[in-house]
């Protein structure tokens, strides 16, 4: 019934960089499946004349004027970083590339 298979969970775990054991994948497939099935119940009441929505509040066009404000100092910006070189964040080398 659910489209959440163990393969889907393993794939998502990989994309999210979360290490899961086979047992956890099994459990999560069941639990996530139940959640998806419950949410899918909305489909039963949604009819063609109800447009899809991405936001619960019927608002649009909340904008900000193009005026510069305050910025963080480099010290503030780096204060929560696990590692830095004084001006830049330091991260472990990742094999990959900019998207």
């Amino acid at each position, binding site marked *: 019934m659910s489209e959440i298979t163990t393969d889907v969970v393993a*794939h*998502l775990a*990989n*994309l*999210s*960089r979360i290490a899961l054991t086979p047992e956890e994948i099994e459990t999560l497939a069941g639990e996530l499946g139940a959640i998806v099935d419950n949410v899918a119940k909305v489909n039963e009441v949604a009819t063609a004349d109800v447009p899809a929505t*991405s*936001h619960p*509040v019927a*608002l*649009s*066009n*909340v*904008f*900000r*004027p*193009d*005026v*510069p*404000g*305050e*910025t*963080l*100092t*480099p010290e503030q*910006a*780096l204060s*929560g970083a696990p590692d830095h*070189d004084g*001006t*830049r*964040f*330091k*991260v*472990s*080398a*990742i*094999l*990959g*590339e*900019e*998207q």
Partner: protein
Amino acid sequence: MAKAELMDYDKALELFEPVLGFEVHVELNTKTKMFSDAPNPAAGGVDQGAPNTMTTPVDLGLPGSLPVVNEEAIKYSISLGLALGCSIAESSRFARKNYFYPDTPKNYQISQFDEPIAYEGNVEVELADGRKFQIPIERAHMEEDAGKLTHVGGATGRIQGADYSLVDYNRAGVPLVEIVTHMIIGADRDAPELAKAYVSAIRDIVVSLGISEAKMERGNLRCDANISLRSRADVAASIAAGEPMPLGTRTETKNVNSLRSVERAIRYEIQRQAAILAKGGTILQETRHWHEDTGVTSAGRPKSDADDYRYFPEPDLLPVVPGAELIEKLRLALPEQPAVRRRRLQAAWSFTDLEFQDVRNSGLLVEIEETVAEGASAQSARKWWTGEIARLANIAGADPASLISPLHVSELIALIEAGDLTDRLARQVLEGVIAGEGAPHEVVESRGLKVVSDDGALIAAIDEALAAQPDVLEKIRDGKVQAAGAVIGAVMKAMKGSADAARVRELVLERATATVAE
């Protein structure tokens, strides 16, 4: 692939048909970023800033921070969409593009996915020989730029073998518009030139709109070039069979940061893919990196699982519903299309293709146009801007337009045409104006550079020159008019260039005939 293994370009085109597609990213030059009020390092005249000095909690993705859309960036995007001939979406929204890489601190990039702000347009592109191509635009969507990574350790700062990476988030959140084309078929052997012409046309459009600094070397305008080949035999067979035409596997070449590179990279990929296909090999669908120094592309990341971005609507942002009134207002404010404007100016100025090309390449079209508007002739304006002013700017390492105003150039030209200045004196006046000594007429005054139009002073100088070269008049009378050159040269030297050579020549010739009459 070593250059020797590439297939000859003509041979490659004989066997295969190239199919192109482009993604061009344009950094907008708004004062602030897309979703935060941090200053935008891609804005005009803004210092790039020391690392991590242009961030707010929003740009760093700190907990509790919320993005708010920059209204100006929306207007710029709509204007760009309209200039690309696109329809503007009644309602568009943002989405999260999820991926894990330290260039984005949130682990997602805010972009647009299923509801881009602009869609289905068309850009006319002109090749050097005047042929025109229509480039179909699929969409233009808004997004935010990512931070900059510097790979440390390993060999030459490349990703492979790096020990660690340093991240500067100044660029994170810079407003971007990504322009995506449909497949471009039919370019054939013009594919490399067409690619260059397309990126150049996009640059002209954003410059005319004033929405981006558009400097490719600074990454304000970036092109990802998609290319695939399909065998002409296969195409012919499918046409004969009435089947849809096959498509080859494409590669996406990134890091193409100049117009020249766009052209070279496409040409290289055609030759590389053709060599592989001709040997019966297969093209991997992958990202490739262009190397400006060696002129080759190298394999990057294969397209795989990692491209599953799990887009979903950005819950922190509301839909953008621009309204017909705003769209019409922006449409009315659109500047003349760059291609149309160029044709109009070239005709109005009666420039040859070569002269006009020269002006275009110099990037001084606007300055020349303004100088002409101030009353100068187009040819003189071209001569001074692309000649002496460009030369002085080059020496100063400055932008020609920053040295002198079109009004002053026009005044300088007027002084020359009135006979008050020779070209040589005008160059000195130009130096004075650039040095901040005032308007041309003020420099003429203060430096005492006016052409000597007093015949008395000229005649005195001519007498002196003739005394030193007594045989000149004789030679002129014998029909050797060119002998006058020696006297004219001596007079010009004596007058330190402040004499009008044509007038000196007249006077010398008059003297010769007058002597005969005696």
